């Protein structure tokens, strides 16, 4: 499925709809270049899950847990991960195969350990179509 959005609000709304339908045990992979809106998408997704806490970029702590929503949300940002073995230290399996929903920003950096049935989301810009235009390609999910 490919979606096109023309403003941050539309991107947020799409993410919120996806979050509303997210089920326990699912893993969502979120890829796209720096500044494309991955954190914004995560915020919409979290709102759809009913998370009321602030969701910000977890680049510093690698992973942040939000447990005040409909399901626990495990929000990863693996931007700073240099080697996939470093994920072991964070105890990633507990979350990937846990009771909540995982959303992994920069998932492509840890490709080797991602579950086969994960939902893949790619956000791309096309400056020719305006600075707020985003093409959002989703695989492994029906909306």
């Amino acid at each position, binding site marked *: 499925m490919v979606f096109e959005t023309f403003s941050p609000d539309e991107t947020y709304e799409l993410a919120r709809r996806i979050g509303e339908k997210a089920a326990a045990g699912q893993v969502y992979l979120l890829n796209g270049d720096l*500044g494309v809106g991955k954190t914004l998408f995560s915020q919409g997704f979290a709102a759809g899950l009913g998370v009321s806490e602030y969701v*910000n970029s977890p680049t*510093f*702590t690698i992973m942040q*847990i939000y447990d005040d929503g409909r399901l626990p949300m495990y929000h990863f940002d693996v931007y700073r*991960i240099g080697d996939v073995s470093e994920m072991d230290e964070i105890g990633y399996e507990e979350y990937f195969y846990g009771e909540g929903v995982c959303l992994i920003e920069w998932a492509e950096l840890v490709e080797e350990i991602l579950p086969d049935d994960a939902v893949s989301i790619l956000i791309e810009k096309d400056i020719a179509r305006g600075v707020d235009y985003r093409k959002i390609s989703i695989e492994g999910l029906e909306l």
Partner: protein
Amino acid sequence: MRMSDKDVTILAIESSCDETAAAVIRNGRECLSSVISTQIALHTEFGGVVPEIASRKHIEKITPVVDEAIRMSGVDLKDMDAIAVTYGPGLVGSLLVGVAFAKSMAFALDKPLIGVHHIEGHIAANFLTHPELEPPFACLVVSGGHTHLVVVKDYGEYEILGRTRDDAAGEAFDKVARAIGLGYPGGPKIDKLCKTQGNPHAIAFPQAKVNGSEYDFSFSGIKSAVLNYINQAQMKGEEIDRADLAASFQHAVVSALVNRAVGASKEYGFKTLAMAGGVASNSYLRKMMDEECEKAGIKLYYPEPILCTDNAAMIGAAAYYEYIKGVRHGYDLNASPNLKLGER
């Protein structure tokens, strides 16, 4: 070293991110020793902090770093009143090294153990540089992982007025520096470049407003505007002036920090404002904050640069005020990567 019975001497350990550090602090204000071993050179080739390298190096460094801090302080280990350690927030593997080490020492020496919040440590760094500073005051905490505008109501009592909704200020510096090829750590690289070059008013980047909270920050919008600017210039085949771009970006971030910190101080009637965290040593931020505070009649404090970046002296300073309030942690103290400010 001679000590009176009333003196409180604390051995403090910090290992939440890049730095393995230990310090000995007397009465929360006097730094008897402070040893910092950084891994920034190691991380540079990866363009960021690599957690696994971080924790492995902490394990190698912690014993010599703590030994050196004790030796330099001239205080006998048996005369320490408590062992303090950062237990969050941070990278879990890195935090665990310090926490396990501190617990072992506290147990072996039969000394009280005090877990300290990393951000409370950053705020307390001001107590070491400025012996006269006492709460209440407003504090802007800005680093690679944090951007908070806090009221320090009393020692150990905090109220958060504003925080970042997306990227931390230092994180935005790192990401923009990477996008324009300046490398890691981004903050100091941009600061250095812009001291001598670049027009801060060359490009007007937006200062994102955050709906609902006057004092919250958003830096991801500024970061996106910088990246859009680069993309558009590339599409048109135009050359980018890196120094102008960096200076204009820095101006946008610093203006947002200064406007909210000074604005909140005025609104809440604080005549004292402090800054803390690695970004607090940014020279452009210091200059603009100095100017605006002077205009507003606000006394501004910030720690010396060595106490802005991660260190254990600040942890010892914060721990002192916990110690005199009677706070003690058990041997079940655990690393808490997402620890919230003010949480106990």
